[in-house]
């Protein structure tokens, strides 16, 4: 893979980009291919890690005294801000219980299938998704379970206000993985919220974190699917809502269980 990558990469040897990357100095056209390379290059990741520790020291050297009002404002804001859930939970035991060894090739195959399908939608999306999924593979077993499930199904839809939402779902795992790309940037008072909507109404399924690099968000995991539900995205106040307060900007109807 790295051979292909090198030929395609106009910046030359990708290894030399680790320093620029650690300083967020790799601009968009080069970043996605570099991140893709990074996902498969442990020594590069380690180099980036070491360099980030060095740049953190640069930041420390520029410390200034902050205004006291900032502290009050931030501490107050945390009282009204919901936290993101940890990336790993439910699946750990199920994962460990599986017979050793067999899952890796199966997961790789499933990932490859999903990525091939995504690539058909958008090449750019696939680059980013590959990177995200590689990270997810390590840290989020639920994502891996859903993607590795024999009944994994991928559904995509355009978001009304811009961007593309993609769901990979598995009835067997009763969970889905949500990602989106190129969502419109919202004012800081607003945030995207994901919902799982069934006959009984909409349940909050998490705030969509758009703080990451680039325009890709997720993967977010939604567990506890039932038949006849749909996934919706709405724009809510930044602190989140218990019920949708605006019309959905995308609705993805989940496939019925087979």
């Amino acid at each position, binding site marked *: 893979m790295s051979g292909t990558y090198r030929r395609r990469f106009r910046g030359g040897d990708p290894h030399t980009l680790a320093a620029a990357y650690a300083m967020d100095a790799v601009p968009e056209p080069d970043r996605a291919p570099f991140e893709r390379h990074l996902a498969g290059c442990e020594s590069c990741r380690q180099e980036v890690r*070491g360099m980030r520790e060095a740049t953190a020291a640069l930041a420390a050297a520029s410390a200034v005294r902050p205004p006291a009002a*900032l502290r009050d404002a931030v501490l107050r804001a945390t009282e009204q801000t919901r936290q993101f859930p940890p990336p790993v939970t439910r699946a750990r035991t199920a994962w460990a219980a599986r017979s050793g060894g067999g899952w890796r090739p199966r997961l790789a195959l499933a990932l490859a299938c999903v990525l091939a399908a995504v690539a058909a939608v958008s090449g750019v999306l696939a680059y980013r998704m590959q990177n995200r999924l590689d990270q997810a593979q390590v840290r989020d077993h639920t994502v891996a379970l859903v993607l590795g499930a024999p009944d994994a199904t991928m559904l995509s839809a355009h978001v009304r206000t811009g961007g593309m939402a993609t769901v990979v779902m598995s009835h067997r795992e009763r969970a889905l993985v949500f990602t989106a790309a190129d969502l419109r940037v919202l004012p800081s008072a607003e945030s995207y919220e994901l919902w799982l909507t069934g006959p009984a109404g909409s349940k909050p399924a998490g705030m969509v974190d758009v703080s990451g690099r680039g325009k890709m968000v997720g993967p977010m995991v939604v567990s506890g699917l039932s038949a006849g539900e749909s996934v919706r995205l709405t724009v809510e106040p930044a602190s989140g809502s218990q019920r949708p307060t605006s019309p959905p900007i995308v609705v993805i109807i989940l496939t019925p269980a087979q």
Partner: protein
Amino acid sequence: MTGGQHGPRSGPPWPSRAGGPGAGQAGPPRPADELGDLLARVARGDHEAYAVVYDRTVGQVLGMVRAVLRDPAQSEEVTQEVLLDVWRSAARFNPELGSAGSWVMTLAHRRAVDRVRSEQKAAERELRVASAVVAYDEVTEAVEAQLDRERVRRCLGSLTELQRESVTLAYYGGYTYREVAELLGVAVGTVKTRMRDGLIRLRDCLGVDA
């Protein structure tokens, strides 16, 4: 003020202009995972732990963001966003991928740079060439009293001029490596190599672990 209630080891990392008691005494280095332990508590919704994390990181976040953005009001706004991000994303901090301090500063630097790139027009950015270089001078001036700062300055000073300029323009200036090449009038490949050599030298000089 805020630092005192957590004991001397958690004192604010920004320079004390008044030069009051304790200023300049860096004390023994904190165990690297202490901030990480605090983040684990923050991930469970612990507001007290968050306040400590805030006090330990805000000065660095604001200082770095200001070095990149220059505009004080915007810098405070971004700093606020970053620290709220730390609250929200604490559960996503993975100690296997680096220290807690570097995690926070990476979040902060990305936000600052994203803000620069999304809001600043090309023409305006030209004007920041000078100020990015000034940022480095300010840094070296501000670092005098404190051990950590002294060390960083010494280590920055051990870089070649081109290495140092490449690193400071990228990190404090928020420029891409291609822009840095343009600003310094050297080949893109040269800048990449200088950045790498510079950061490796800096990393080794500072003795930070990956």
